[in-house]
């Protein structure tokens, strides 16, 4: 299988070697040469300036951009190691932006190195980031070697007449004035080129603009698109463990994805109905739909689909359907409850005993994601049930990014339609919860039933 490395960094050399050891061939695509990506895991087509390249898996290696905070270069030109100076060295973390965790061991090692050479070292930070095995040890050793750790609330840097920096740091009660011979500042990290790359690869970005590490899995390198991985090569330079883990995750996950049994739940398209409006293409959080220009229809990729149903609910032409109908469970005629399987579904399973004990029954429909819930589904349900409840994830918890917010918008619209039609709007209820909040759902069900 071929792996496309997007972005060329020194880390690529290591990756090429490691992937080759796992019988995976690599090609490198410079990130500014990549124009468009279609296809799915096992069969990606990368449109580059040199024509089309094909790969089974894509790994983004383009690093985020690291730049020094704007404090002036004049302050940094004294070499802290060789310069025999009595003045202290200041290591400044979290200036302008909270420093990344991976920078801490680098800074700690440097602090330790300097302290052991009898230099006075101030380590200025907003919060400690020592909670890793090696970092913990480094931290202890640095303290032992006399590094002064200072937790600051505010810090100012001024240039003195001699062109040196003067650092003043304040915490809640006191201020510290240091005239260091050297000031070493942790760089701030910006998405840089990875932003445009994420858009090109249709990867979700987090609120800071970085490629979203798909939090559902919380494993390193996963993105919102199957078969596309992102290795933070900047971090990899500082953290060999991370790189090892990342490589293992790419090899392990892609092998599993490629050999997995058929995806059970995915969307299918009715070509006759498709208006080729690109709504699904824009809304799909997993880039599972690709335009088929020849036939002027959108094509869902079973291999890339997570079955979240967001496209199904968004499609204005009613052209998309999920392959698997999930039948309602429970025999209630009075309440139907749509449950996101990541929240409502698990919460209600924890309630079964209580509900049975109280003699309460509901008709329960599991949905992969709240994004699947639509106005017409809610209204259809009301023809048979007295009340309908939508139970979806909390804000910021949706595993498909915005399915819960879409569910909320759809519910609001359904309620307003009922209101306008002179029907009882309270028949539709909406609750946001996590799987760990069964009581909340319990109350909702009791109120709906009683």
């Amino acid at each position, binding site marked *: 299988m071929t792996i496309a490395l997007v972005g060329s960094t020194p880390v690529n050399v290591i990756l090429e070697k490691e992937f080759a050891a796992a019988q995976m061939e690599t090609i490198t695509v410079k990130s500014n040469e990549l124009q468009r990506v279609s296809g799915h895991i096992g069969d990606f087509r990368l449109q580059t300036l040199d024509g089309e390249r094909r790969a089974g898996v894509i790994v983004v290696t383009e690093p985020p951009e690291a730049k020094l905070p704007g404090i002036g270069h004049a302050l940094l030109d004294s070499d802290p190691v060789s310069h025999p100076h009595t003045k202290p060295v200041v290591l400044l973390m979290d200036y302008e932006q909270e420093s990344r965790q991976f920078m801490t061991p680098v800074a700690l090692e440097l602090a330790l190195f300097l302290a052991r050479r009898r230099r006075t070292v101030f380590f200025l930070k907003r919060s400690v980031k020592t909670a890793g095995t090696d970092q913990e040890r480094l931290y202890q050793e640095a303290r032992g070697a006399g590094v002064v750790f200072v937790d600051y609330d505010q810090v100012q840097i001024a240039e003195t007449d001699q062109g040196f920096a003067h650092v003043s740091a304040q915490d809640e009660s006191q201020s510290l004035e240091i005239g260091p011979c050297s000031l070493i500042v942790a760089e701030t990290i910006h998405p840089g080129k990875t932003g445009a790359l994420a858009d090109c690869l249709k990867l979700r970005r987090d609120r800071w603009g970085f490629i979203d590490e798909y939090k559902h899995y919380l494993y390193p390198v996963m993105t919102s698109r199957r078969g596309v991985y992102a290795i933070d090569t900047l971090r990899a330079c500082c953290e060999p463990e991370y790189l090892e883990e990342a490589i293992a995750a790419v090899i392990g996950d892609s092998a599993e994805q490629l050999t997995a049994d058929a995806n059970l739940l995915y969307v299918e398209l009715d070509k006759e109905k498709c*208006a080729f*409006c690109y*709504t699904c293409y824009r809304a799909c959080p997993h880039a599972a739909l690709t335009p088929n220009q020849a036939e002027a229809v959108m094509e869902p990729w079973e291999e890339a689909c997570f079955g979240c149903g967001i496209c199904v609910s968004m499609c*204005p032409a*009613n052209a998309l359907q999920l392959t698997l109908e999930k039948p309602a469970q429970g025999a209630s005629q009075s309440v139907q409850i749509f449950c996101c399987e990541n929240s409502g579904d698990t919460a209600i399973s924890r309630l079964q005993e209580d509900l049975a004990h109280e003699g309460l029954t509901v008709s329960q429909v599991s949905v992969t994601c709240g994004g699947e819930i639509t106005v017409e589904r809610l209204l259809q349900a009301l*023809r048979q049930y007295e009340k309908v409840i939508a139970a979806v994830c909390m804000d910021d918890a949706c595993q498909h990014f915005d399915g819960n917010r879409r569910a909320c918008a759809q519910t609001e619209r359904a309620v307003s339609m009922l209101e*306008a039609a002179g*029907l009882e709007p309270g028949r539709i209820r909406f609750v946001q919860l996590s799987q760990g909040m069964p009581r909340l759902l319990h109350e909702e069900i009791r109120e709906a039933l009683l």
Partner: protein
Amino acid sequence: MIVAEQKPIDEILRTLDGFKNVLIAACGTCVTVCMAGGEKEALKLAALLQMRDADMKVSVVTPKRQCDMEFVEEILADAAEHDVVLSLGCGAGVQFMSGAIDNKLILPGLNTKFMGVTQDIGVWAEMCQGCGDCVLEQTGGVCPVTRCSKSNFNGPCGGSSDGKCEIDTEVDCGWQLIYDRLEALDQLQRLYQISEPKDWTTSRDGGPRKVHKKEMIL
């Protein structure tokens, strides 16, 4: 694309008062794309109507377009079986269906808004008023007729501030857009020329219009 918006539900319901047998005709083209009158919207309305009155007979059809005879013909039989047709087409579709379906009232379910483009999922913006005499070559591809609230041809009025129109800070000043674009294209000299009063005969002000493509007509 023609952009439309669904009429308020209560207005649609009022126009349907007294009918027991309703055909909802969605339209598979522009109004599907602008999420106002596609099959999904028709199904929502159908569900709501039936909830209100379980005895009501409601059917949904979705011709690809309501503005061509061949597509409308496909639904003639359905229309014959219902008392009234609620069209979710644009104004043109409603009128074309009215001409094609005898003895049947065709009710509009949408308010037809403008010719525009998709800006984001669920957001459409007006881009063209169909004035019949395009000046976009002068203005860097930004239409002063449509995108300036006063249809100014010689630059912005004094109410433009921070690139926004005086009528609403949500509205971009059309002339700021024209300026930015021409500046980027290094074509600002185009703006020094006084633009003459526009000939509106090509617009709707000249009466209902038709387009004849001569070589296609025998």
